[in-house]
């Protein structure tokens, strides 16, 4: 009996914990500046207004930030998936000297945090003369995405029976063909999970985007959002509207594909 109470308490507690801030974002986004300033209708927008959302598209470059974030996230994801799956395949299926150490190296680099690397990485980009471009981010993001993707996919690849490939090999297929025709399709859920992770992490990335990019036209969403904080007054309404819209794409993707993400976490965490 107490188990049911426990279950119920935990579930309700967590639901409330997650739902309340989300509600606060939405509610604020539909309030007028005056309402927010004077604390009228705190719990529910009164009057209800769409002016914040309209403001985003008419007066700010929100649409542009969306585009920049999308381009960066998609490109980083595709690159990281390609590099990561190639590496994961080599590390789990092929034998070569230095395999063990290289595998360990990949995992160790995973542990070097961006919060530490932003200055030296920026200096590296300065040295090669490539800064202030979305391409800079697209090259920089894989530094923290690829190790993760590799780790995740290694777990996935390991769970695919070797026999299938060996059968194909014996039948005359090349290694690359088995990778392409057998392993990748079977690892599709893993790729999907890894892809979602990459997309989310890229979409949300803030520090590199803040430092590496100076051009207003290349601003990504997180940096644009943080701009609201200092450059306008009575900004919470617009800011929350921007927050809601900025979260929407990733949230939508997750609503449809979250079970893949979960199974991805499973395979990676349990078997990796």
């Amino acid at each position, binding site marked *: 009996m107490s188990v049911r109470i426990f279950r119920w308490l935990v579930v309700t507690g967590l639901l409330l914990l997650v739902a309340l801030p989300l509600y606060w974002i939405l509610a604020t986004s539909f309030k007028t*500046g*005056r309402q927010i*300033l*004077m*604390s009228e209708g705190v719990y529910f927008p009164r009057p209800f207004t769409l002016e914040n959302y309209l403001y985003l598209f008419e007066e700010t470059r929100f649409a542009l930030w969306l585009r920049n974030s999308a381009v960066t996230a998609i490109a980083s994801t595709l690159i990281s998936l390609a590099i990561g799956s190639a590496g994961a395949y080599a590390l789990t299926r092929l034998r070569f000297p230095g395999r063990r150490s290289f595998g360990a190296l990949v995992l160790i680099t995973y542990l070097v945090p961006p919060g530490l690397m932003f200055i030296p990485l*920026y*200096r590296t*980009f*300065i040295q090669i003369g490539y*800064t*202030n471009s979305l391409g800079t981010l697209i090259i920089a993001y894989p530094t923290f995405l690829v190790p993760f993707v590799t780790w995740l996919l290694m777990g996935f690849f390991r769970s695919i029976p070797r026999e299938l490939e060996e059968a194909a090999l014996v039948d005359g297929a090349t290694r690359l063909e088995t990778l392409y025709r057998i392993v990748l399709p079977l690892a599709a859920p893993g790729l999907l999970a890894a892809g979602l992770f990459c997309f989310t992490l890229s979409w949300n990335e803030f520090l590199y985007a*803040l*430092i*590496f990019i*100076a*051009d*207003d036209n290349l601003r990504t969403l997180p940096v644009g959002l943080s*701009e609201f*904080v*200092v*450059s*306008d*007054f*009575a*900004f919470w309404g617009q800011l929350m509207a921007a927050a809601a819209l900025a979260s929407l794409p990733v949230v939508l993707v997750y609503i449809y594909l979250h079970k893949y993400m979960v199974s991805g976490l499973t395979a990676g965490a349990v078997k990796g």
Partner: protein
Amino acid sequence: MRRAPVRMLTIVLILALAWALGPARAADVKLTLWRLKTYIPPADKILDTSIQDCAKRIGAEVQIQTYTFDDMWTKYTAAIESKTLPDIAELDAVGPARLANLGRLSDVSDLVGIVTKELGELAQNAEGAVKFGGKFYAVPHYAIPLVLFYRKDLLEKVGAQPPETWEAINEISVKIKKAGLLDYPQGFPWNRTGDGYDPAMSLLWSYGAAWVDKSGKYIGMPKDKAVQAVKLVTAPYLTDRTAAPDYLSWSGSGNNEAFMAGKVAFTPNGPSIIFQEDSTKHPLRKDTAIKIMPNGPAGRNLALTFVMNWGVPVDGKHQKEARSVVACIMSKEKFTGYMTGSFQQAVPLFRNLINHDYWNNADGKVIVETVKLGRPVGWPGPTTPAAAEVISSNVLTDMMTRVIVDKVTPEKAVDEGNQRIKEIYDRLPVK
């Protein structure tokens, strides 16, 4: 399958032809310009129009990038290191000192000469930020004064006169709190923004606690005077409890909001609060008043921190065009247009316009007076890179928060502050 490439080719050829035969592009010169995103959007729009117009006149194109007070140095730091400073850079009060010392700004003494012809002589106190070694390295654009905002109605309710001294502000706040009108009426945010370090300088200087001598060399803040000043800051937080600790975490607009939400009776700010209240027909507009920042035993030595200056970095490949654009923006016609459309935010630093009719009203007089009494960062010396770093490293407000948050004694905090300042001056010696 075979038609597709042929079709593609045709389209490409047509496009290429169209591009080649299209109207000759007038602008061959592309300039980049970085400017501050102010709290007054209509003023920004006027400035942008002027800039674009000026560029067109000389057949150039300008790409305008903006920054806020908060991320200004993030952008400039990145640009300094990657050698990608813009052609025209609007810099703050310490930018010219820093960049000139690095040799990254062009000598613009001639430009200042041109502007002087149209707008009158440059105010003396504006020179410290831009003139080094007898040469001008930036053209002063305008100054945003930091004035004392207060609630007329609340002061009347407790029978107080508008405050002349720092002590008076604290006393009146106590009265307001005792009368149950507001919990935390004293809204001075000693935070890591301009709203923090500007009043910090004004306060310390009005008590005679400057940290350099007239040549700009380090002498250290006189301990007793600095402690006196610090105690005035910490009393509202620690003993009177007329200031909420949250104010220390305010961002640049936190105090604006608090004032307009009716939660504080005093706060230092630029004129943007008036603009914001006017444009939203705010109920508190009639009760909002401004006064010049307070006096101290050593006089009224206000900080002229929010000064914007036009620099022409040496990185730029179109020096001549950049200079003409700056000269044009600062022409009488263009600048007067900007000034009168700025809702009293842009105070001119050249004589003729300071006496303009635009400033001939109650608020305008306070604003202009503030700028006239302003002293450059690094007073009583000139603005040096070391002084710049004292401000950007928030040494002064950190000193205050050490007492308020970490409960360190004012004496110890002042010692720490002096130590930090000395370390900066050792690293960035004043020539």
